[in-house]
């Protein structure tokens, strides 16, 4: 665990730094694997930049809307450079809406655009695992297995390493398929199905799960639903493709 990277007087949050490196490397890789027709590198970066800005603005606006009384007396705090005053769901929603509007204006094909971003997402997932390892988040359940790691006062499953290895396997698998233009959406949906499958499997060794009805782990329920949705869409798109319609 290495939560803070101290470089002279500068204290950097290692996990945040790793996530940034993940975005940088992921986009670089995605750019190299862009299909010949479809998204241009410029559009790839513009869309990312736009989604990032919309995400931050949306996250702050949603936070302010939900905690309005905090800002009534000191409205300038709306501009506070405090990353904890953000609402993640508001951010994701704003980023998605901005991306959809951009995509529609530029006439981008929905599924091909998602495919273009898939290598970046797969690389990012590897760095999410490393960031968890650095911060000690997403920790495992206590274990007596010889490869247990000492974390939070107990010997635990190195769930962050499992997560990173799974993401690496998914990246390697998708990397061989990327750049092919067989069926728009296949690469992205494979990523969703494989990542959800990995989470469904690995969540069993987590020590920090939230539980839902009957002691089921919430993350597994969500992962199963995503896997089912992904498989359904893959099957339906393949069937449409087989019947001679590309579905785009």
């Amino acid at each position: 665990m290495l939560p803070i990277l101290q470089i002279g007087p500068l204290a950097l949050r290692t996990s945040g730094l790793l996530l940034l490196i993940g975005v940088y490397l992921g986009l670089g890789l995605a750019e190299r694997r862009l299909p010949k027709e479809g998204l241009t590198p410029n559009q790839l970066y513009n869309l990312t930049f736009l989604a990032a800005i919309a995400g931050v603005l949306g996250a702050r606006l949603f936070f302010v809307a939900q905690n309005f009384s905090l800002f009534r007396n000191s409205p300038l705090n709306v501009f506070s450079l405090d990353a904890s005053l953000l609402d993640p769901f508001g951010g994701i929603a704003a980023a998605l809406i901005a991306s959809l509007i951009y995509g529609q204006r530029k006439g981008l094909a929905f599924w091909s655009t998602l495919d273009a971003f898939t290598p970046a997402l797969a690389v990012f997932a590897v760095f999410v695992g490393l960031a968890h390892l650095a911060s000690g988040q997403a920790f495992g359940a206590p274990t007596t297995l010889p490869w247990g790691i000492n974390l939070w006062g107990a010997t635990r499953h190195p769930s962050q390493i499992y997560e990173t290895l799974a993401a690496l396997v998914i990246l390697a698998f998708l990397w061989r398929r990327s750049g092919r233009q067989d069926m728009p959406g296949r690469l992205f949906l494979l990523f969703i199905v494989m990542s959800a499958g990995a989470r469904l499997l690995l969540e069993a060794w987590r020590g920090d799960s939230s539980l839902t009805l009957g002691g089921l782990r919430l993350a597994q329920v969500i992962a199963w639903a995503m896997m089912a949705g992904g498989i359904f869409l893959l099957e339906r798109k393949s069937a449409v493709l087989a019947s001679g319609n590309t579905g785009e």
Partner: protein
Amino acid sequence: MQPIPRRILMVGLLLLGLTWAWLSRADPALVTGGLAPAPQAGFLAPDFTLETITGETVSLSALRGQPVIINFWASWCPPCRAEMPALQAVYDDYKDQVAILAVNAASQDTLSDALAFLNEIGLTIPVPLDTGGTAQRLYAVTSLPTTFFIDADGVVSEVVVGGPMTEAGLRARIESLLEATP
């Protein structure tokens, strides 16, 4: 032999997933709902008893029933000094509802430097002295300042490593802790 149709494979995979989710159900006591004492969000905040700079004895467990903020600081640490006025401001506004402890990392500070700083800013927050470094070890404090937000049940709700924290950020966290207080 005929290959297994894809659709059957997919349905089988999904059934396998459901079975796995069912098999890996967890006892609430074995996941973070189980409140293992650890300085991590979702865990029970480890208990400590320290003497304050004014000679009183303070125990974390005695403060159960109201949210608690524990801020680890030292006088030589610029972000600690920078965020202390914000802590004092929220202490002035919330001291009846929220306990704030400004734990001085006394094992790596001197009493005279700490006192000089406290007098300089006129701090009235209780300042327990962690002379032996026990609380810092219990809370795995590796950098200063580190601040723990603990709810009325004694469960750590958030750990902020580094600073300075903003007054707005402190108010936001206090309000959400109070909202969750029965």
